[in-house]
């Protein structure tokens, strides 16, 4: 074979190898990022996985897994996102990427209503890192969800002191925070068993306890009417009518009312926490 052809072949082969390698690393990462930026999260997740598959560099794999987890989160697949992030070996990673991954893990835990796990991941992030600015708000929201209001309040005040750009704004927001975290304003935890027991003794009382007085009154009136009807019928010697149409129907409304009260307690607890955290988010946005 001609020496020139051999030379060309060798050059092209080496170029091909290095080009393929480069494409599979930074090139593909930018392709995946492009897909992510254009909101094609499903396709982006595949491209990130491809990078992780083709790469042998631990940091590149971690970056790809992080991108994949973000793509999953944007598709509301929080468990899948966590699964990806749990597969990343953190000890060998440099700090910015390590913190980002820990934050992402915490965020997915928070979105899955696993606030204790979220706090656990957040505590692993070093406070000195600039990523802290993003970490503290999530920590406050997680602390609220975990009903550790004192700690959340202190963290929010510290965050305000560190981040507020002028004293007037700081004073005004501090007053808002104090009012928000006042005892009367804190979201309450309505216990399902307590609501059920209230309705067991007084039909409708469980609904009133769960902050649904309208439903409570309807339940009370309905059960009361059925009891009176049942007693009235039996009093007048209509035993079967009293038993069937009075107490028979009342049994259903009475037991249904207890279940309803328990469900309302659960929903109300969740709704109050969502509203409270929404108010906290508004304050954090004002601080920023």
């Amino acid at each position, binding site marked *: 074979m001609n020496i020139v*052809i051999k030379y*060309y*072949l060798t050059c*092209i*082969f080496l170029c*091909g190898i290095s080009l*393929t390698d480069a494409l599979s690393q930074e090139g593909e990462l930018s392709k995946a990022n492009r897909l992510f930026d254009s909101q094609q999260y*499903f*396709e982006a*997740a*595949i491209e990130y*996985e*491809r990078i992780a*598959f*083709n790469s042998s560099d631990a940091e590149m794999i971690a970056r790809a897994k992080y991108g994949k987890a973000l793509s999953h989160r944007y598709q509301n697949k929080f468990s899948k996102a966590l699964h990806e992030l749990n597969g990343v070996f953190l000890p060998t990673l440099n700090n910015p990427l390590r913190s980002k991954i820990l934050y992402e893990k915490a965020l997915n835990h928070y979105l899955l209503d696993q606030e204790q796990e979220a706090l656990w991941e957040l505590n692993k992030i070093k406070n000195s890192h600039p990523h802290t600015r993003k970490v503290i708000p999530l920590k406050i929201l997680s602390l609220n969800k975990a009903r550790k209001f004192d700690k959340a309040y202190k963290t929010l005040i510290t965050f305000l002191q560190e981040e507020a750009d002028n004293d007037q704004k700081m004073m005004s927001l501090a007053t808002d925070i104090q009012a928000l975290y006042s005892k009367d304003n804190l979201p309450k935890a309505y216990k399902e068993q307590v609501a059920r027991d209230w309705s067991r003794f007084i039909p409708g009382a469980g609904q009133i306890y769960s902050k649904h007085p309208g439903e409570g009154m309807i339940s009370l009136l309905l059960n009361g009417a059925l009891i009176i009807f049942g007693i009235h019928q039996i009093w007048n*010697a*209509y*035993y*079967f*009518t009293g*038993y*069937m*149409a009075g107490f*028979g129907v009342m049994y259903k409304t009475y037991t249904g009312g207890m279940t309803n009260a328990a469900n309302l307690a659960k929903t109300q607890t969740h709704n109050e926490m969502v509203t409270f955290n929404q108010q906290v988010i508004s304050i954090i946005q004002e601080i920023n």
Partner: protein
Amino acid sequence: MNRMLLFTIMLVPMWGFSQETDLRFIDHLVKTDAFEEAVFLIDKSVIPENDTARRDSLLFLKGWSLYRLKQLRPSAKALQKVSESAPFYPKSHYFAAYNLTYTSHYKEAKTVLSNVKKYHKDLYHFQKAGLSLLQKDYEDFNTHLQKADTSFYAISKEAASLYSYAKTLREHRPKSPALAAVMSAVLPGSGKWYAGKKGQAITTFMTVAGFGLVTFENYNKRGIKDFRTMLFGALFAAFYSGNIIGSVSATKIAEQEFEHEYRNKILFDLHIPLRNIFN
């Protein structure tokens, strides 16, 4: 000209390398249970007609992913296209046949099974026997199961189960909806008892009897023209007729449940040997 030719020659292996990498990546996706992603990539890639090995691999991976995603009909379609030269041809076709059986395309399933008759003969006869049992062709079922070596570890337990299902199915006498209706007309709830729904039978009896007594009580004390007698009478009539109609439905539902239960049992036992042999 020579340089152009040289460049083209160099591109061919690079293209091949890229395709190979792609196939490896799809295989990796399948192995990590990312089936939706695998199907997405396969659908995006061109399935070559001339490169049989690559074509077969892509079709198999697509069929397998769809099977895992429980999209059985399209899975069978992809798996059936795997050519005989592929090492995973028997697996593809046996699973295609199973998918078709599961989706009640029995005729097609039989055709697909006949393509792999020469591979795993015992499994072939076992699957054919199962298909026949699902169609309640007991003669064909016996013929095929007798041809299979039922002492073969992969099918021995399941073959015994199929024999027992066949016995139950053969001896099963369907419940009569008409008899259930008559029974419920005479004694409310008894039709449901006959259909095997004992809990429902007791509830029905209590409700109809309760409204009957309430109606009788009101009729006895207030007379037929009183609105309460009419109201409770109407309720009694509604529950009484509902009890008869309900008994007819209960027998039909009980039959469907019986059929469904045995169909699932048979399909389950047809599936286990496939996983044992091919995984």
